[in-house]
C-alpha cells in the first residue's frame, strides 16, 4: 500500500549530501514504499533544503523497528543531556 501519510517538520541543522554539507530546513517523514531498501515498507526521512533544489536531500529508508530504536535513542540522548546543554522543548 501507498500510505500517502507524510509529516513535514521545519528543522535547522546541517546535512551532508552528494555535493557536501548544506543547511537543512525541512524534514519529511513517512512510512511508505522505499526506493532502495529491500522491504515493502520503510520509515523514510528526507532531510532537505527545498530552496536549494530537489537534490539537496539526505535520505534514509529504515526498517520500522530500527527507526523506532533510533527515535528512542535520540529521545534518550536528549533527555540525558546535562542541564543547560539542550534548550527545553
Amino acid at each position, binding site marked *: 500500500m*501507498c*500510505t*500517502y501519510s507524510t509529516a513535514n517538520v521545519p528543522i535547522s541543522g546541517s546535512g551532508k549530501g552528494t555535493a557536501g554539507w548544506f543547511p537543512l530546513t525541512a524534514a519529511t517523514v513517512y512510512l511508505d514504499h522505499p526506493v532502495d531498501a529491500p522491504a515493502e515498507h520503510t520509515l523514510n526521512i*528526507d532531510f532537505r533544503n527545498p530552496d536549494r533544489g530537489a537534490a539537496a*536531500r539526505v535520505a534514509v529508508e529504515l526498517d520500522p523497528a530500527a527507526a523506532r530504536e533510533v527515535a528512542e535513542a535520540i529521545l534518550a540522548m536528549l533527555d540525558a543531556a546535562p542541564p543547560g546543554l539542550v534548550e527545553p522543548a
Partner: protein
Amino acid sequence: MNDAIQAETTMIAGAGADQIQAYFARPLDPTPRGGVVLIHHLPGYDQLTKEMARTFAVNGYQAIVPNLYWRDAPDASPDDAAAFVRGQGGIADERLVGDVGAAAAFLRGQPASNGKVGVIGHCSGGRQVVLSACDLPAGTLDAAVDCYGAFVILSGPEGSGMRATSIKDKLANLNAPLLGLFGADDKFPAPAEVAEFEKSLTELGKPYEFHSYEGAGHAFFATDRPSYRPEAAKDGWQRIWDFYGRHLSA
C-alpha cells in the same frame, strides 16, 4: 516483420503548453497503432515505469510517460524529484489531468497513430487514471487501466500531508471503459473500497471490468519490489493486452 523499437527521452507540451520531459517508446514498424499514456506512480518517473513503456512498445503500442514532476524538479534524479514533490504535498489534480490530455494529443499526432489512446497507472497513478478519464473531454481516452489505485472512493487520511481526495462524485463523468486490477490483500485500496467503486460504476451504467487477485497485495506488478506476485502480474498483463486489443484497435 520489423520488431525493432525506439525508446528515448524527449520533451512534449504538457498542461498549459509547458514543456515537460517525457519518455517515448514505440515500434519502428510504421503500421498505424494505438497509443498508451503511462502515469508514473508516487515514487516518480522511474526505471520500472520506463521499462513498462518499452513493454508496451514491444507489444505494438506507442507509449509515453510524461514526467509529472519535471516542472518542480527539472533534471533531478527520479527519487530526489519524488521526495521534493512529496514535501510539497504532491501535484495538483488539474495539472495532472492536463498533462495526461497533452500526452494523449502527442500520441495522436504521431504519424503511426491509429487515433486511439489508452491510459494506465499504478498506485497513485491508478487514481489519476480514473480522474483523467472523468475530467478529460470524451474522446480523449479510449480505454483506461487502473492498477490498484487508492483514494478513488475514499479520501486520503486526514492530515496526510498529501493531496488525494475522493473522486467518487466525478464517476458520473467517466467516459472511457475501465479495467481495474487489484490485490485482494491490499489495504489501500482495500477490497471494501474496490467493492464500493464497482457498485458505483454498476449503478452509473459505466463499462468496466475488475479483477482482484488472491495472495496479492499492493504493487503486485512491481518486479523490483518484494510485493511482486508473478502469477497475478502475468494474468494482469494478459488482461491488459486483451482490454487494449479490444479498445485501442482501429
